[in-house]
């Protein structure tokens, strides 16, 4: 479903700030794969997500979605196939617009936008049904402005908006990191539920190792712009945090140093 082949990216090339962000990344996701991505800060996780979404273009290498080469396709065209949820709960929704208007925007992802009314009766019913699956009582607040919702509610709405049109790829970039523990758990459970329901091909970046182990059928670990460890479905079932720490130490010959990584263990 998603193929990355030899993706390279250097920021600020030929300046003193030069930084290798992605170093020959190759990754294949089959349909229905749910891959969690871990790694310390600056490992290239977010850069990889931005390459897939089209927010950044690779220096060289190829990206294919469903067999189609999208390497040079601009972000807005690519997002027909890609659902995204960002770390910042404010980033995925339009605050001055109502819940139903936000959903209508997400609903129009697949087709060309026209002069049809965004929220008609039929769609409103569908929006209500979809919102009901969140169990947050948002289905009774269709006309509330999204800016009035709490961070957790907004993130749940973002998640629904990213998934309810069944995108080919779902990208989750630390989408629970900015929430308090109970809200984060809620969103984690919703993620599991929504991804399983439509068998979505998913890539999720997280700093929470436990979450990385609990969710998904595959796991990759990144460091210094490379994928240094891939855990396949058969091995992932029995994976423990200690295994990951030990594995990192074995490969890099150093202790994993990231305050955030340690804190969230």
């Amino acid at each position: 479903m998603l193929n990355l082949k030899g993706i390279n990216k250097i920021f600020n090339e030929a300046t003193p700030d030069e930084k290798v962000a992605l170093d020959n990344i190759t990754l294949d996701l089959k349909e229905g794969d749910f891959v969690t991505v871990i790694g310390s800060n600056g490992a290239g996780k977010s850069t990889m997500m931005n390459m897939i979404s089209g927010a950044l273009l690779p220096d060289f290498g190829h990206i294919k979605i469903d067999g189609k080469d999208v390497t040079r396709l601009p972000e807005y065209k690519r997002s027909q196939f890609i659902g995204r949820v960002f770390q910042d709960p404010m980033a995925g929704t339009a605050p001055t617009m109502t819940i139903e208007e936000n959903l209508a925007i997400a609903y129009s992802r697949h087709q060309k936008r026209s002069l049809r009314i965004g929220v008609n009766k039929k769609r409103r019913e569908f929006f209500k049904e979809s919102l009901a699956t969140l169990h947050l009582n948002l289905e009774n607040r269709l006309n509330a402005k999204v800016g009035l919702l709490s961070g957790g509610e907004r993130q749940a709405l973002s998640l629904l908006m990213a998934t309810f049109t069944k995108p080919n790829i779902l990208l989750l970039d630390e989408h629970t990191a900015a929430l308090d523990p109970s809200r984060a758990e809620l969103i984690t459970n919703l993620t599991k539920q929504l991804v399983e329901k439509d068998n979505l091909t998913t890539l999720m970046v997280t700093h929470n190792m436990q979450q990385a182990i609990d969710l998904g059928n595959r796991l990759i670990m990144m460091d210094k712009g490379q994928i240094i460890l891939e855990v396949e479905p058969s091995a992932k079932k029995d994976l423990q945090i200690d295994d990951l720490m030990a594995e990192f130490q074995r490969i890099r010959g150093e202790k994993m140093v990231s305050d955030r990584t340690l804190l969230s263990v």
Partner: protein
Amino acid sequence: MFTAIFGSVEQGIIYAIMALGVYLTFRVLDFPDLTVDGSFVTGAATAATMITLGYNPIISTLCATLAGFVAGSITGLLHTKAKINPLLSGILMMIALYSINLRIMGLTIDTAVGRPNIPLANSDSLFTLFFGFWEKLGIDTALNNMLLSLGVEHVPNTWGTIFIMFVLTFAIKFTFDWFLKTEVGLAIRATGDNDKMIRSFSANTDTLVILGLGLSNGLVALSGALIAQYGKFADVGMGIGMIVIGLASVIIGEAIFGTKTIVRTTFAVIFGAIIYRIVLALALQVEFLDTGDMKLITAIIVVIALVVPTLRKKRKDKVRKAKRRAERALAERREAKTIA
């Protein structure tokens, strides 16, 4: 007095179309577009030139609107494709339009390429076309007789302008409200609200910004074309400070009528434009003030409209805190008494 206010309402409702355009860029798209000062004149110049050349006023007005749309789109292109800062894109387009407007009006004479103004005193206009039909209805006489019986001394020449403009402006308002609820309209609103988000839902924000600026300046030019036909002249300097007038209308309207929904806000903007004209007319009744002071008065009105809501909020806050403090003091005293 009555005549002055009557005239203000007539003008206000025509300028309201321009204010709707300013609302679309400033508030909906969050794009401070200064093209307005130029595109307003472009509308006036195009309409005046075409009417002088003998075209039908309706066609001339439509072409003027289209010219504004093109001007706005170019500002959009400058910002999205050439990556020029929004303010600067607008200023560049505004200054370019100054020359273009001279050239447009220059098409009416053979002796020079540019022309700074066109009088329309004896030409047809949208209004004269409509009056031909309106006068047969006899509504003017009926309304004026009513006013005379109420003791008003100077009755207006015609109610036709107010009637046709109310119909036209509200038709535009309802179309505008509807448009902002369509899929494209929702996407334009989201572009102003959170452009990262709308891009992640497969919308081309560049196209949306260009479209929004085009529509906005189309409305502005339409307003300019109507003002030229209402005032019976077009002048290359008539657009100076137009953006501030538009902003004044938006801010006054929002402060008085609120912004809860789109439907309500567009209503607020229209009445903001009318109220602005009335305030200006009343200010000019003061002996000391001259028509040349209009821009200064406008600036002061905008400052007041911006400052008053903040001050009011502060005072309310202060009163609330004082009340709480008094209550707390009272409770403490009571407590002290019970202990004693």
